C-alpha cells in the first residue's frame, strides 16, 4: 500500500522519530500544524503502514545484562540450507536480541547479551559455537552507545 507523503508528513515524522515520547500537542507545535492535523496525519501514516509500530525500549543493562556483543558470522555457503538452518538455530537462543543479514563480507550478525563475561563465555561455547554452518566468527564488544536514534534526514 502506498500513499502520497508530503512535506507536512515529513516534518511531523522528523520530529516524531527524533523524540518518540513527545506528546501530540508538543509534536504539533514543533511541526507547525494544529493538534487535529497532527493526529489525523499520524493516524493516516499508521494506517498505510508507514509507521509500522510503536514499541517500548528495554534497557537490558538495567535488567542485569552488563555485556553486549555483536557477533559477525560468515557462513559456509556451499550448503544451500546454510542461511535458513543457521537463522532457525539462532532464534532458539534467548540471549540473542537481534538478527541481521547482510550483503558484504559479513553474512549474519547476532546481537547477544550476557550477565557478565563468565556468562558470555558459557553462551559463546555452548550456544554460539554450536550453531550450524559457521565458517568464521568475529566479535565486537560494545563499550558504549554514543548515538541511537531512529531519526531519518527527512
Amino acid at each position, binding site marked *: 500500500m502506498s500513499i502520497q507523503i508530503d512535506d507536512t508528513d515529513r516534518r511531523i515524522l522528523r520530529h516524531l522519530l527524533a523524540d518518540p515520547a513527545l506528546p501530540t500537542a508538543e509534536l504539533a507545535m514543533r511541526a507547525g500544524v494544529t493538534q487535529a492535523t497532527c493526529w489525523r496525519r499520524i493516524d493516516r501514516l499508521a494506517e498505510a503502514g508507514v509507521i509500522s509500530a510503536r514499541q517500548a525500549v528495554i*534497557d537490558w543493562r*538495567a535488567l542485569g545484562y552488563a555485556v553486549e556483543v555483536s557477533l559477525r558470522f560468515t557462513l559456509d555457503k556451499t550448503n544451500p540450507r546454510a542461511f535458513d538452518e543457521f537463522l532457525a538455530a539462532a532464534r532458539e537462543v534467548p*540471549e540473542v536480541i537481534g538478527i541481521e543479514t*547482510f550483503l558484504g563480507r559479513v553474512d549474519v550478525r547476532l546481537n547477544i547479551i550476557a550477565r557478565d563475561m563468565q556468562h558470555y563465555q558459557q553462551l559463546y561455547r555452548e550456544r554460539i559455537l554450536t550453531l550450524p554452518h559457521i565458517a568464521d566468527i568475529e566479535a565486537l564488544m560494545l563499550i558504549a552507545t554514543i548515538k541511537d536514534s531512529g*531519526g531519518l534526514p527527512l
Partner: protein
Amino acid sequence: MIDLDDTDRAFLRDLARDGTLSAGELGRRHGLSQPAAWRRVKRLEDSGILAGQRILVDRPALGFGVTVFLGIKLATKGRVSLEDFERAVTAIPEVQVVQHVLGLFDYRLRVVARDIADFERVLRRRIMTLPGVGQVEANVLLTEEPRPGPLG
C-alpha cells in the same frame, strides 16, 4: 536492580511488541486491576528497565531504501581523537547509530541512505572526511529481526 516476576516479564514482552498498550489492557491480559497494572509499569519505568519508546517506520516508503552498517577503525588514537570523531560523527543526520566497540573496529555505525548512489555520497563526503578515520568496512543490511530476548 529490581526482581522481576512472571507478570513483570509478561508486561515487558507485550510492551516490547506494542508500546501503546495501556495499563488497563495489560491488566486485562494478565489478570490485574488497572491500578495494580499501572503500579507495575511505573516501577519498570522508574527502575530504568522500560527506557522510552521507539517508532518503527517503513523506510523504503519514505525514500530511504538502503541501510548500511559501517565498521570504522581510527587511524589515530588517543582521548582527543575519540572525542573529535564522536562529536563529528553524531552530527551526521544519515548516521542513526554510533557505537564504540572493542575488537576488529573501533566504531560501528548504522547509516541510512536513499539508494546506493546516495550512500556513496554520504560515505565520501561525510564519513571518509571524519577526523582520524582509517579503515572502513561496509555491509549492506538485507533483513533485520528484533528478538524478544531473555524474558522467559
